[in-house]
């Protein structure tokens, strides 16, 4: 399935990129579809792609011994996930599962890193957005933890 610039522009993560920069994403991405209960990746999987949720619903969590899945969060449209694909050791910190028919933008992480080396400005902008995603995710997780620790 082919991505278009208009489609990317309507997604929150791709705000404030120029058309040229969006074309870079298009050249290294594809649209992937998942059905209910499809596992996009497991905790500790090696990751090659970084994803942005276009439509649908995804649950995120960790696994305990004896394969009990604990749901810890839900991903919303426009959100980036699988960011570990961009940093060594490229290992996932959680599992992600589709809980309804879902469409994502799948960006080739190795090719993205090559683009960062070619164009530092683009690299800095994208890494900043990824850092903000992680920061919010951490802040929300702390909030969730605080709720369990306090009344």
């Amino acid at each position, binding site marked *: 399935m082919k991505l278009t610039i208009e489609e990317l522009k309507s997604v929150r993560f791709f705000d404030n990129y120029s058309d040229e920069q969006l074309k870079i994403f298009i050249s290294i991405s594809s649209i992937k579809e998942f059905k209910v209960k499809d596992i996009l990746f497991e905790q500790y999987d090696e990751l090659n792609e970084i994803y942005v949720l276009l439509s649908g619903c995804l649950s995120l969590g960790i696994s305990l011994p004896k394969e009990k899945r604990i749901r*810890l969060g*839900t991903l*919303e*449209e426009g959100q980036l996930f699988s960011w570990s694909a961009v940093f060594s050791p490229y290992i996932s910190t959680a599992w992600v599962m589709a809980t309804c028919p879902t469409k994502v933008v799948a960006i080739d992480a190795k090719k993205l890193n090559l683009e960062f080396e070619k164009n530092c400005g683009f690299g800095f902008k994208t890494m900043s957005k990824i850092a903000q995603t992680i920061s919010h995710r951490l*802040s929300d997780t702390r*909030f*969730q933890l605080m709720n369990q620790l*306090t009344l």
Partner: protein
Amino acid sequence: MLIDKNIYKPIRARLTDVIDESPLIKTFVLVPEDKFSFETGQFIELSVDGIGEAPFTPSSSPLVKETLEVTVMKTGYVTEYMHMLKPGIFMGIRGPYGRGYPVDKFFGKEVLILGGGCGLAPIRSLLFALENIKDKLEKVILCYGSKTPSDCIYKPLFDRLNNTEKFEAYRTVDKADEDWDGSVGVATALLNKIKINIKNSIAVVCGPPVMMKFGTIRLLEMGYRDDQVYLSMEKNMSCGLGKCGHCMMGEFFVCKDGPVFTYNEIKHNSEIWK
């Protein structure tokens, strides 16, 4: 002119119904004996005869004058007694006190309500008030999080709001159970899915202290100005009259200057934010 009304004397209200919302939460339906009305966001001091009183923000519509509803969580001495009460007895009401939500300042705006836990009770009252003026509002979005699915009271509220023009309501839980198929995570994570014009928006945050802190910080990061964020601050409101000193928060008496404040008014208070 100084008036002769006794500010300490409660009016009596007959308890006509007790609704079980959850194992720890009940809603009391009261019919005051004297004329009584409140603005959404104001609070009352509700007393059990001879036992004690505690502050509550009514959870019912401020437009309904004959009755009011107060949602009470069993959490201490007085509320434990309240939970043992049966319809037919009289309770005492002092109030209404404080500064409620200035809904006329919301005209022409998109209203974002970020709520958590027990904050849903005053939020419910605010939603009734906003429904009444929805022609004057652009839209109203509720993002609400509870610890578990069973901690969320007023469950029919969400479907009803999603079927009301200009209203959207989203729910999430910190910890899902087997049957839960909705969002998991905190209310601030729900902010990722909403579409809102922040420049023409008002945000209201209401919930336990953890929610107030994290929620406000996230809203400011999103681009809300200090005077666009309304907070309902909770303190040990006791007299409700700005006299007994228990609810002082810096130079403010929460019972008189609040409980609704803009972030702008209280951002310098290190007690809350540090």
